[in-house]
């Protein structure tokens, strides 16, 4: 078992972080805003943590003190929120694919900045980021509470007035205005909450990955995060959580499958060399068979109903 955790500890934590990143894309999507800015805030959070922990905080001892980590999280929350509001107010007037592209542009501009600035370590990035834990699996102490808190938050959010307002905007922005809903306020709200979540995951990831550079949080990531939500299901928060976990684990599951002994040789070869071919294929298949995502509100209802019977 301990062997399992050392091999897959990293993956398990990655899956949880993937789930949270899924939520960070899901939040703006609740109000119909297809924002792909999450990787940008993720990168930002990572840089904040990397810079603070390698250049600002001084500490003695073997492990990076958790209070410092808390400080990084706090600071990232504030910076992400401020940036998200400043960015959100002009950008969220855009709709659909236009918004998506504007946010991609934002992410790219951040990336180029990181490549050109000294403080971000240019292409090499920042390395030797200190560790708050002895082993990777212990990062669960951070990741799980963050996931659970976000899930409770979203669970409640979907039940209440605010959630309904977000859904109304998603359905028909114009009509929602005529129903007295202040679209700008709610759109910026959901965008900001998503940005904060992404930033927080960035902080954890920077420590978790030992290093941070401009390859973290790029355009590819934007689309992968979006896939978390859409394949998982974009109508309930459970969707992105499941989607984030499955899609993060998928390439590694394929790796493990390729390693199982007793497979016929060509198949084993294909599983290994064609890992990403299969990944691509599964994404297409997943989209076809779960056009509404794997988890839908109806499915949840059915499950709940079965339980209560």
């Amino acid at each position, binding site marked *: 078992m301990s062997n399992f955790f050392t091999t897959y500890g990293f993956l398990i934590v990655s899956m949880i972080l993937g789930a949270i990143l899924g939520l960070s894309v899901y939040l703006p999507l609740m109000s119909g805003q297809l924002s792909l800015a999450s990787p940008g805030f993720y990168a930002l959070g990572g840089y904040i943590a990397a810079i603070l922990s390698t250049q600002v905080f001084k500490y003695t001892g073997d492990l990076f003190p958790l209070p410092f980590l808390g400080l990084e999280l706090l600071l990232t929350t504030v910076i992400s929120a401020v940036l998200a509001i400043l960015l959100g107010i002009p950008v969220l007037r855009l709709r659909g*694919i236009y918004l998506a592209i504007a946010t991609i542009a934002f992410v790219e*501009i951040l990336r180029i900045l990181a490549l050109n600035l000294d403080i971000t370590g240019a292409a090499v990035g920042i390395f030797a980021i200190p560790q708050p834990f002895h082993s990777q699996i212990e990062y669960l102490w951070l990741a799980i509470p963050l996931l659970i808190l976000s899930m409770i938050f979203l669970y409640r959010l979907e039940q209440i007035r605010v959630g309904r307002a977000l859904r109304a905007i998603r359905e028909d922005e114009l009509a929602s205005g005529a129903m007295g809903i202040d679209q700008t306020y709610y759109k910026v709200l959901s965008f900001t909450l998503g940005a904060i979540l992404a930033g927080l995951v960035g902080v954890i990831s920077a420590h978790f990955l030992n290093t941070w550079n401009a390859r973290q949080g790029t355009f590819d990531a934007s689309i992968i995060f979006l*896939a978390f939500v859409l394949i998982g299901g974009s109508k309930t928060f459970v969707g992105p959580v499941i989607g984030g976990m499955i899609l993060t684990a998928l390439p590694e599951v394929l790796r493990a499958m390729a390693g199982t002994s007793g497979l016929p040789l060509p198949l084993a070869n294909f599983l290994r060399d064609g890992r990403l071919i299969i990944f691509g294929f599964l994404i297409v298949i997943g989209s*076809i068979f779960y056009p509404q995502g794997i988890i839908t509100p109806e499915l949840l209802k059915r499950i709940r109903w079965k339980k209560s019977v």
Partner: protein
Amino acid sequence: MDFNIFLQQFLNGLSVGSVYAIFALGYTLVFSILGIINFAHGAIFTLGAYFVYFLIGGASGFNGWLSNAQLPFSFPFAIALLLGSVLAGLVAIIVERLAFKPLRERGADSLLTLVSSLGAAVFIVNLIQLLVGAEIYTFPDNIYGNLPVAINLGTVEKPVMVRTVQIIIFLVSALTLAVLTYLINSTKIGKALQAVAEDTTTASLLGINPEKYIVFTFFLSGFLGGMAGTLVGSSVSIAGPYFGITFGLKGLGVIVLGGLGNIPGAVIGGLIIGLAESFVPTDYSGYREAISFALLFIMLLVRPQGLLGRKRIQKV
């Protein structure tokens, strides 16, 4: 600025821009009909270049399952270009049938096609890698016959050089633009395409078979993509399976700048970004990449419909 230098940079901008434009034409075409971005376009662009490479008799390298393979026959470049582009068009149709049509029929969130087309792109790119490796493939330098590699538009002392391949790319984009514009604006096919673009159900009530037009659009887009991939590949070589994917992101910028789904917009957008990049001061060359995105960002805030796009009216 010295006029010759200015002219040189201007021509550079046009030539870089025409590469963006030729990529973006097929990209924006699909958007104009289905209102969705086809992320697999970059992969089909790449694939077209590989097809033509093999059709003119090229051999594969050593790093793939098809190591050291070669077709038993070969075609002249012009014919290979045509055939390769047709093959790319057929692949585009397959992508449409597998990754787009089922979603359309099942009434999926249209965003999901972003994801499924990305899946198709991942699939194609990695299949290429598995088969022919990540090596760089290059077209022989005699494919354009005896044309000089570059033409001097200036004097001997003050040269203004333009690479011939780039001129070809520029001309082909201009020609493609003209043909597409005519097709869409002045023919019955174009009108029907626009009807399909707006509402497939209504189109079918008018006797239009939307599926036929969607397939046609994908074929055309794949054909143009394949051709573009070959031409660009002949200019800068096929730098591995990710070759076309790297254009995808900037291509997105290009088509939004010009106006999403707007055919001339794709060309104008490409040229503008090319020009803007070529006039970045030397000291800021590190920020060149950011230029297209900064332009795009500002454009979206000021005029979201793009330079040539028409504002979407919404009557209540």
